[in-house]
């Protein structure tokens, strides 16, 4: 206790600086955790969160009753893994290209252009998708028809949606992620490059032996952070792009869309909370495991 107080005293400015963040997570992340009890209760307004009757695991039952739990969990993890690999890969490549690019104005322009889709709401993206692939009037089919080809019916072809979703996810988020990598590259000491150049290293050798190794910590941190969310499907994205199209759910359904659809007409708070608990527990296990392995390989890269 006394040593803690000493520490508090010594670093009081630093503690002050971190306090908003601590307060933020305390109020918005830790305190609401008490709400987990709703998942085990039959909630009603009169008795409130803590007074409502306990129902044990009753609220979780619909997961396995529908027989879809496994499928949607696998879908969620696979999609997020794919996003992680593809998006991070693209971000690194684009960041390196931008960094190596000579013209300052062209670089600025490209960076903004790539960043722009990040600000477009998924609702609007959903409208894009519908207007592209609508069978009768969609742009794609109109183009195909004018070329004399047969129109394609994307809405009943579930495999096509995997690519559509991957494409739009990359299109929308790569610009944002690129900024992290670009910042990391800018931090690399310029003298290293100059030294390499004098030693006769060409562009590719410089990238291979200087830029990439310097990026590894950033890559690992970003990947660890996204691993924590690997069982959370981006509801906005999946719901707005795919919509209520049952034909393709086997390939596009993620935990979040599954839960919303199941509970839309029922409105049972306990059951939605149960879904949240399931995801949180799974996230917790996954992030602890991944962190454990990272730690064993290279202690400095681990989150904790």
């Amino acid at each position, binding site marked *: 206790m006394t040593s803690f107080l000493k520490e508090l005293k010594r670093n009081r400015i630093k503690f002050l600086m971190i306090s908003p963040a601590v307060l933020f997570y305390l109020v918005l992340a830790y305190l609401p955790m*008490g709400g987990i009890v709703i998942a085990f209760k039959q909630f009603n307004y*009169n008795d409130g969160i803590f*007074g409502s009757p306990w129902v044990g695991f009753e609220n979780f039952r619909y997961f396995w009753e529908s027989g879809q739990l496994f499928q949607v969990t696998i879908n969620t993890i696979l999609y997020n893994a794919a996003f992680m690999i593809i998006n991070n890969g693209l971000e690194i490549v684009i960041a390196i290209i931008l960094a190596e690019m000579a013209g300052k104005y062209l670089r600025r322009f490209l960076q903004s252009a790539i960043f722009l889709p990040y600000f477009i709401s998924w609702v609007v993206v959903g409208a894009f998708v519908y207007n592209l692939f609508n069978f*009768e009037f969609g742009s794609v089919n109109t183009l195909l028809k004018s070329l004399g080809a047969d129109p394609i019916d994307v809405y009943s072809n579930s495999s096509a949606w995997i690519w559509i979703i991957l494409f739009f996810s990359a299109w929308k988020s790569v610009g944002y992620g690129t900024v992290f990598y670009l910042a990391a590259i800018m931090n690399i000491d310029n003298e290293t490059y100059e030294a390499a150049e004098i030693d006769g290293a060409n562009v590719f050798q410089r990238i291979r032996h200087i830029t990439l190794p310097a990026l590894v910590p950033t890559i690992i941190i970003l990947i660890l952070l996204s691993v924590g969310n690997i069982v959370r499907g981006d509801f906005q994205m999946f719901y707005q792009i795919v919509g209520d199209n049952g034909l393709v*759910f086997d390939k596009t359904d993620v935990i979040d869309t599954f839960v919303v659809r199941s*509970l839309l007409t*029922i409105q049972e708070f306990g059951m939605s909370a149960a879904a949240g608990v399931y995801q949180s527990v799974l996230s917790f296990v996954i992030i602890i495991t991944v962190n454990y392995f990272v730690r064993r390989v290279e202690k400095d890269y681990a989150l904790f």
Partner: protein
Amino acid sequence: MKKRLKWQGLFAIVMLLTFVLAGCGNSKNEASSSPSTSASPSASASAEPSASGSANPAGADTSKEVKLKMYLLGDKPKDFDLVYAEVNKLLKQDINATVEVSFLSWGDWQQKYPLLFASGEDFDLIYTANWAQYNTQATKGGFLEITKDMLEKYAPKTAASMYPEAWESAKIDGKVYMLPMNYKEIQGSISLLRGDLVEKYGLDPKELAAKPENLAKYYDAIVKNEKGLIPVNAAGLGWDGVPLFVPWDKMKGWFDLQGTGNLKMYYDSNDPKAKVIPFYQTDLFVEGVKKAKEWADAGYWSKSAMVSKTADNEAFKTGKAAIFGQNLSTINSLYTTVNTEHPEWKAMAIDTNFGRPVDLKPYIQNGVGINKNSKNPERALMMLDLFRNDPRYFDLTFYGIKGKHYDIGADGKSIKLLADSPNYPPEGACPWGWRDDKLVRPIEGGLPNYDDLRNNMLSTAVNNPVLQAFNFDDSSVKNELAAVGNVLTQYVKPLSFGVVKGSVDDAIADARKRLEKAGAQKIVDEYQRQVDAFLASKK
């Protein structure tokens, strides 16, 4: 000095934690003490019971100005604020109050509605109905109980004018949580067609309305000849359990059962035992899906209809679809709008009940409830009393401003729509909760065959079929409903739209198997058990 500061900081943290913990503890204590006092609010002790009891026993105290907050469903008409400015002028005079209205749009009201209650917002009034979560929110304790005493004290005119059976029908476990409309409503299924196209292709409206299959002729003529017009819009939501083609003519006397989400169930009103019929198990379902596939393949609706977000009435209004089906009053209202904007379409309505007798709708089909957390339930009741019984308020909220949106017709009763009417269409601003038989006015320029359609339905209408007052308690099958709802969207919805890969029979067999596995039969059994108990209790 420095030491003191440190201790103060620590003290502050301890205080903070204490407050936080105390906050949790308090709500718990209050909550556990409240169940005995029926639906009285637990948090805001200042609300109705004590306030009215002590402050002013003689009558309502209106000396303090209050601002009421009301939620309605639908999309706000353009001139809504103008109209309610007038309403507020009157309210200010009469009961020293004003009302502020927010709309929950058709697109997402189902999600937002429960959140209003869950978040503990202190709005005063909200539209509710048997199809708009009355049951769910009432059993969760979202509404304030309205007692006979309160009614007589704050809404005396309503207490006198309300049909006794309307009051009874709003009871849940013997308690009333809404003021239901005071109106004998008949809805039925009416469809609006494009008269110009019917004429152009030499179709006979009588023949079209004879059998559900016959509409194909109309659709066919359009698909083959009218480029850019798709006969049926069939927008996304709501078709999970019922195919877009249903052999209604073979379901005479069948009535809807409520309370199972998209799992459509019917009962035959001629069957005294009221056997519950889950639609997906019937042969009619198979017939419907087969026909729906035929029609989908013929292009009567878009192949992407399932994900379309354009509402059906919008599609008809903007000339993108050629049919719109709804209940009589909605069709009548849409007809007036369409006919003013596009007289050349010669919009016409046909009866698409296909010989099915319709039912007089329950009074709780429309109503207004008072929020449990309302700070001014007395004033809210007083306002409702005015809305329901005073023609000044009724006409404003239903038809808009006299001389701007409408005028009284030559007979002194019916109303004539003026040029601005589309900005506040009659009955367009969700005033249905205070609809009253005495005050509703017929509309000039509405459907020319309105009376025919209504009388025709009334002549065969079934008054109060056995299960109309029945309310399903879904608490024991919630998990099954969730699982089934999911299967319905994933496997049955495509069938409803006639989108079938492979053979229809296989697809249906597969969907049925999945529904059974998700527990559909358990829901049906539970429903039947409650229906049996309900019928037994009535004897």
